[in-house]
C-alpha cells in the first residue's frame, strides 16, 4: 500500500489520451493469436490489423517490453531457441517508431513476428526432430520460426486514409542446415464510416536437416520442410449508426510439411511415451502432408461514453476456426465460439487510467480429432489453445482481464494488472488470473509509448 501511495503521489502529471499496446487491448478482451488489434476499439496496435491506422497514430515511438518469448521445445528450453511464440506471460520484445511527413506517415517496427506463422511451423516440425535427445537431455530440433522481422510502413490521407506495409523475416543456421524466410504485404483503407484491409502472406518457408536421436531410438539424419502457400487475411468494418460497428474477417493459410523420417509407428509412439513420461503418441508421418488453417470472424461492437470521457465497450462476435492436417488419419481442429465482451476504461486520476473486461462464450464448442498425429510440442500448444481431442462444450470460458496506463504527459506506460498470484506466479492465459492486485508486479506485458 505504501508503495502504491508513493507511486501515486509521484505520478501527478497530466496524461495524454493516446493508447498503444498489446496490454491495453488484452485487458479489453482481445483474443487474437497475433494480437493484431480490434475493429471497434481505437488503438495504435490496430496497424497490424488495418495498416491504414498509422494515419491515426503518427509521431510516436512504441516499446513493448519482453525478451525472446516462449521457447517451443520438448522441455521448453533449447539454446539458442529456434522456435518461439509470443505469449503475454513471456512476451517478445518489439517496438518501432512512426513519423508524419507532410500528408504522409512512415514507420519502422521491429520484432512483431506472427504467432500464427510460428504455430504452423511448430505444427509442421518433424515429430522425430522434436523428440531429439542428446545424452539424456531433450534437445528439440524445431523448424526455425520467423525471426528478426522488420516491418516498413507508408501511408497517407487524401480524404481517404490509406497505407501499405511490407515485412520480411529470415535467418539461417548452416551448422544444422536450417533456413527460413517470411514475407508479407499489408494494405488498408479507412473511409468515413468503413474500413477494409487485405494482408497477404507471400512467402513462408522453413527447412532443416539434422542428425537426431528421436526418443533415444537411434541416430539418423532427418530432413524436414515447411512450405507455406498463399495466405490471406481480408476483412473490414462498417459503422451502422453512432458507434455501432459490424466487422468481420477471413483468415486462411495453407502449407505443405515434409518429413523424411521413416521410423514412425507403434514402436515410435511407445518409446516417445516412455522417454517423456507422458502417455500418448509421438506423432509424425513420413513424406509430405498438407495443412490448412482458416478462421472466420464476424461481429458487432460498440462503445459508449460515460462520465465525461470514460468508456464502456461491448461486443458480440462469432469466430470459427478450422485446422486440418491431412495425415493418413486426418487431424482436425474445429472450434466455434460466440463470446460476449463487456469492457470499461476509466480515467481514475489524471495520471492513471484503469480498464478491464469480462468475457464469456454464449456458445463454445470444440470438435477435435487425431491431435496425436502432431509432434509432441504441437500437441501441447494446440491443446492449450483449442482443447484436446473430443467434441464438447468449451468449459469455464469466463475470463476477467484488467490493465492500467500510467501517464506522464507525452509518455504512457501500459500494462496488464492482476496477472500474478499471491506467490508472484504469473498467469499464462486469460482466465487463469487468481484475483490478486500485486503491487510488487505493478504491471505486466508492459508497453511504453512516447508521443512527439
Amino acid at each position, binding site marked *: 500500500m*505504501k508503495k502504491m501511495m508513493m507511486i501515486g503521489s509521484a505520478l501527478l502529471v497530466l496524461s495524454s489520451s493516446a493508447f498503444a499496446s498489446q496490454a491495453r487491448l488484452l485487458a479489453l478482451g482481445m483474443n487474437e493469436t497475433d494480437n493484431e488489434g480490434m475493429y471497434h476499439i481505437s488503438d495504435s496496435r490496430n496497424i497490424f490489423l488495418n495498416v491504414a491506422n498509422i494515419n491515426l497514430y503518427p509521431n510516436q515511438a512504441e516499446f513493448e517490453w519482453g*525478451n525472446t518469448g516462449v521457447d517451443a521445445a520438448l522441455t521448453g528450453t533449447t539454446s539458442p531457441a*529456434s522456435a518461439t511464440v509470443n505469449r503475454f506471460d513471456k512476451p517478445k520484445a*518489439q517496438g518501432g517508431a512512426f513519423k508524419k511527413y507532410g500528408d504522409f506517415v512512415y514507420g519502422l517496427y*521491429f520484432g512483431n513476428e506472427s504467432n500464427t506463422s510460428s504455430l504452423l511451423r511448430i505444427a509442421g516440425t518433424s515429430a522425430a526432430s522434436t523428440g531429439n535427445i542428446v545424452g539424456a537431455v531433450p534437445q528439440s530440433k524445431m523448424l526455425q520460426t520467423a525471426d*528478426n522481422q522488420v516491418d516498413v510502413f507508408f501511408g497517407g490521407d487524401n480524404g481517404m486514409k490509406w497505407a501499405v506495409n511490407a515485412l520480411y523475416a529470415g535467418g539461417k543456421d548452416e551448422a544444422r542446415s536450417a533456413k527460413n524466410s517470411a514475407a508479407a504485404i499489408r494494405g488498408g483503407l479507412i473511409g468515413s464510416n468503413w474500413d477494409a484491409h487485405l494482408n497477404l502472406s507471400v512467402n513462408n518457408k522453413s527447412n532443416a536437416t539434422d542428425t537426431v536421436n528421436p526418443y533415444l531410438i537411434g541416430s539418423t539424419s532427418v530432413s524436414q520442410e515447411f512450405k507455406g502457400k498463399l495466405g490471406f487475411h481480408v476483412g473490414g468494418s462498417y459503422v451502422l449508426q453512432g458507434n455501432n460497428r459490424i466487422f468481420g474477417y477471413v483468415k486462411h493459410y495453407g502449407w505443405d510439411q515434409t518429413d523424411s523420417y521413416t521410423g514412425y509407428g507403434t514402436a515410435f509412439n511407445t518409446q516417445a511415451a516412455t522417454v517423456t513420461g507422458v502417455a500418448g503418441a509421438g506423432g509424425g508421418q513420413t513424406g509430405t502432408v498438407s495443412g490448412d488453417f482458416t478462421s472466420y470472424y464476424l461481429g458487432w461492437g460498440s462503445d459508449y461514453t460515460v462520465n465525461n470521457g470514460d468508456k464502456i465497450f461491448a461486443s458480440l462476435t462469432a469466430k470459427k476456426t478450422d485446422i486440418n492436417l491431412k495425415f493418413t488419419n486426418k487431424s482436425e481442429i474445429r472450434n466455434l465460439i460466440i463470446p460476449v465482451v463487456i469492457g470499461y476504461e476509466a480515467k481514475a486520476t489524471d495520471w492513471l487510467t484503469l480498464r478491464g473486461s469480462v468475457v464469456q462464450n454464449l456458445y463454445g464448442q470444440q470438435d477435435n480429432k487425431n491431435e496425436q498425429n502432431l509432434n509432441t510440442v504441437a500437441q501441447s500448444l494446440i491443446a492449450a489453445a483449442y482443447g484436446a481431442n473430443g467434441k464438447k462444450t468449451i468449459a469455464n470460458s469466463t475470463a476477467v482481464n484488467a490493465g492500467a496506463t500510467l501517464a506522464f504527459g507525452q509518455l504512457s506506460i501500459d500494462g496488464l494488472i492482476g496477472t*500474478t498470484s499471491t506467490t508472484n506466479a*504469473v498467469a499464462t492465459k486469460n482466465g487463469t488470473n487468481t484475483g490478486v492486485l500485486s503491487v*510488487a508486479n505493478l504491471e*505486466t506485458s508492459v508497453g511504453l509509448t512516447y508521443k512527439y
Partner: protein
Amino acid sequence: MKKNVLVIAGLAVLSTSAFASKARMEALGQGTESFYLNDTRSVFLNPAALNDTKNYIVTEWGTGAQADSQTAPRAEGGYFKEMGSFAYGLYLGNNGSNTGRTIGAAQKFEDHQNGLDLMLAGDMGVKWGARVHYAHSTDESVPAGAPITRKNNALGLGLGVASGDLEAYTNITLSDKSEGATVAGDVWKRKPGFQVGASYKWSGVTFFADYLNTSEEITAAAASTLTSVINAATTINAGTTVTHKTSDITVGVARVHEVNPGARIVTDARLVLGTNEVGGSSAVTGVNGKAKSTVLPLTLAMEADATSWLVVRGNVHQNVILGEDKNIAGQKTTRANSTTVDAGATLNFGKLKVDGVVGTTGTTGTAASKTGVLSTNNLLTRVGVSYNF
C-alpha cells in the same frame, strides 16, 4: 508513510541535465559507452570528454566480482574535478575485459582486478584528455601446502582530442599479463592492442568509426596442461602456446533529435565486422581457425523528462539485413532473436541522480528475466548514483 512523503518531497526538485551511468547507456541501446551520445561514461572511450563532464562523483552499484554485466554488475566509481583550466579524475574498479583468462581448473590465472584509472584533461582551443589505467594483484596462498605465485599486472593508456565537430581517440593496452595458474610457469599475456576511433558531427548527424583489436598468448608450462581456455573446447598441451586474436570494425551513423528541451529521439545504424581467431590449440577439432561476424543493428531510442524528478528512456534494437556469424568451418548462422527492448529511468534529487535499468526482473524477482514486468520490488536495477557539485 512519513518516509514516503519525504521521498516524494525530495524528488520534487528540478534536475540538472547531466547523466552518468552504464544503466543509461544500456537503456539507450549503446552498450556501456556510446560513440556519439554525451555521457560521463564517454571518458572511457575518449578522455577529452572529461572537459565537458566534471565536478561529480559517480558510484555504480554492484558486487566485488571481476566480471560486469547488466544482471550482475560490478562495483565501480570515481571522482572528477575541475582544476583551473584542467580537469582530473580518479576511477576505481574499471577492470576491463577478462577474455580468455578463465581456464578449466580450480586454480586459475589471476584476474585483472582492482583497476585504477587516472585522467587528466584540458582545453587549449582543442580539448584533449589522457587516461592511465593500472591494475596489479598477487596471490601466493594456493595450492595449500605448496603455494605458487600467481600475479597480474596491467597497464593501459587512453588519449583523445575534440575540436569542434570532430573527435578522435585511441586506447592502448600496453601490457596485461597473468603469470601462474595450475603451475607457476603458466602464462596469459595480452600483447599490445589498441582501439582507435573518431566521430564527426555534420548537419545534426554524427558519423562514427571505431577499430578495436586484441591479441593474447596463453602458454602452458612444461608440466602443465590447460583446458577450457578461451572456450570449452580449447586445450593447451604442456609446453605449447595458444594464440587468440579478435578485431571489431564499426562504422555507423547516428542522429539525436531534440524533440524539445526535455526529450530526445535517438537513432543509429552501425555495421560491425568482427573476427575471432584461435591458433595452436592441441584439441584442434572445431577450435583453431578464424570465425567472423557481420551485423547491422538499428537502434530506435527515446529519452524524456516525464516529470521534474523522473527521466524515462528506452530503446528497441534489432539486426537488419545483416546479422550472422560464420564459424571456422565457414558455416553461417543468423543471430536469432536479435530484437531487444530495454528501458531505464533516472530519479532526480537535485544534484543527486539515481539511474537504473527498468523491467529486467521477472514476476518472482528473478534477475535477467525480461518478461515485460514493471516491478516495484526491483524498481531499478544496475543502479548508478551520481552527485554533481
